[in-house]
């Protein structure tokens, strides 16, 4: 992980760590914090705890997103303190004294963000969607623009392509070449990976190429576009990995109190990120009991027969 982040994530980059509730790349985000990256533009549909932590650590200057919160629990204090008028200000504002630097926001809807990655992946100049009519979102974000159908049947809204410098995807498994397989919620990791200049895949398990080839329908990202494969079991905690571990909901509940208090949050970052040298140490600190409690019961898929054609 250390080498992948050092080689592929640079100051000023646009970085997408996707994963919709499922497969969120916490281990990768923590490594970016430890390596002290600065001035990143962070993109993600749902900036949840990981971006709250990264933004509290000062790695980002801008956030591109569609829904901001601690899913099922509440708010994200670090991001709120850096976006609300009472606690943050833009550089040069007359009342900036004593306030946190204002985080720049670029805001869409979920479908808008998915459309942006799709346009980025497909090399299109924009993606058209039937959202945003009669809302204030196009006023809040002038990059959301009306476009006339060339076939004369009305107006839709366009969103621009999003092409991250780096996309980081957490997955159940990949082979050494980076051919990556996911099951459970797919989010928009595929689109975000194909849109990116560089791709880091972090997996629970490294498997033989034959495992991938035995079930090619499950491959979402080909090794062709992958720059680094990192094996990091439990690397998505406190989010979850379908079939491997459940969401650690107690962590999400506990975060609600931590994130309300900037000092408590900075203390958490020291204890759980800066003072640890990687995910293995983090898992050890969590303790075997907590880890074991997150193991789900078993619900295997039936298998299908792809057939042999010679």
């Amino acid at each position, binding site marked *: 992980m250390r080498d992948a982040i050092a080689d592929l994530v640079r100051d000023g980059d646009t970085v997408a760590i996707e994963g*919709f*509730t*499922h497969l969120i790349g916490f281990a990768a985000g923590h490594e970016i914090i430890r390596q002290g990256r600065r001035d990143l533009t962070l993109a993600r*549909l*749902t900036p949840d705890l990981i971006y709250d932590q990264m933004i509290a650590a000062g790695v980002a200057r801008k956030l591109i*997103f*569609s*829904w*901001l*919160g601690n*899913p*099922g629990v509440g*708010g994200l204090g670090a*991001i*709120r303190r850096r*976006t*609300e*008028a*009472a606690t943050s200000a833009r550089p040069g504002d007359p009342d900036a004294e004593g306030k946190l630097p204002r985080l720049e926001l670029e*805001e*869409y*809807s*979920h*479908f808008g963000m*998915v459309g942006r990655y*799709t346009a980025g992946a497909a090399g299109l100049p924009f993606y058209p*969607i*039937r*959202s*945003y*009519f*009669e*809302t*204030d*979102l196009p*006023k*809040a974000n002038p990059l959301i623009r009306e476009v006339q159908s060339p076939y004369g049947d*009305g*107006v839709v809204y366009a969103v621009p392509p999003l092409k991250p410098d780096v996309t980081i995807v957490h997955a159940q498994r990949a082979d050494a070449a980076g051919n990556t397989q996911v*099951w*459970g*919620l*797919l*989010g*928009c990791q*595929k*689109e975000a990976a194909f849109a990116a200049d560089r791709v880091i895949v972090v997996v629970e398990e490294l498997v033989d190429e034959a495992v991938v080839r035995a079930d090619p329908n499950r491959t979402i990202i080909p090794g062709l576009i992958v720059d680094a494969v990192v094996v990091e079991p439990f690397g998505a905690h406190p989010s*979850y990995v*379908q079939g491997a571990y*459940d*969401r650690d*909901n107690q962590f*999400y509940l506990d975060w609600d109190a931590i994130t309300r208090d900037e000092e408590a949050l900075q203390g958490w970052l020291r204890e759980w990120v800066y003072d640890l040298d990687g995910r293995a140490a983090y898992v050890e600190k969590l303790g075997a009991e907590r880890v074991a409690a997150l193991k*789900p019961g078993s*619900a295997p898929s039936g298998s299908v027969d792809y057939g042999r054609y010679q």
Partner: protein
Amino acid sequence: MSGAAFSKSEMMIVAAARELAGQRVCFVGVGLPNIAVNLAQRTVAPELELVYEAGVFGARPARLPLSIGDPTIVTGATAVTSMYELFSFYLQGGLIDVGFLGAAQIDRFGNINTTVIGDYAEPATRLPGSGGACEIAINARQVFVIMRQSQRSFVEQIDFRTSAGNLGGAEVSERIRREQGWIGRGPSVVVTDLAIWHFDETGEMRVDSLHPGVTLDDVRAATGWQPKVSESLGTTSAPSADELSLIREELDPGGAYTR
């Protein structure tokens, strides 16, 4: 078992679930809609197809999902899709009968704010934003809303229009929906902790039913405009023992939604 004690939140969730009777395909929004639709699937609408924006069609959650991306919505579902497919083919393609949303602020015409309190550039409170709500509001055939009501949430003027309701009234809303080819007809019901509201022919919401123990004065005190009241104002049936035990024992034993 009538006369059992119940909380305002439990009444709201039960009333919202009952509204789903007879519905087929429901897009489940963040927060309170999640528990209401899961109760409906266990009571009035066992055939309800639950659609989650995370990319699931036909969810059969064995436990109450902790969030709208919980692994329990995947195991046993009819289909798992990419979010691209979900938003493009299922929602924008017109397959959703009911979009079930929550809201921070709503106005009399059912326009919703979940973005900011105060000025957008200098917000007093930064809220989550649209997520999928603005597209659900346009593309679901009808929209149900569940939210707690107060002078802060039921407001004369919302601070930001995240999701379109009946705009400035039924006439303009119907014209714009027709001209721009929206699939959705807009909001049809708002269920709060005090009452059930439907929308009248002018596109404005009207109190149709007060929850047990709630007076019209209570509703007026928690509404930021002078609310219209149905001529046949009713009283919502109290939660049944069965509905309460499903909420308390099966869906939300920790009280996350009912506190």
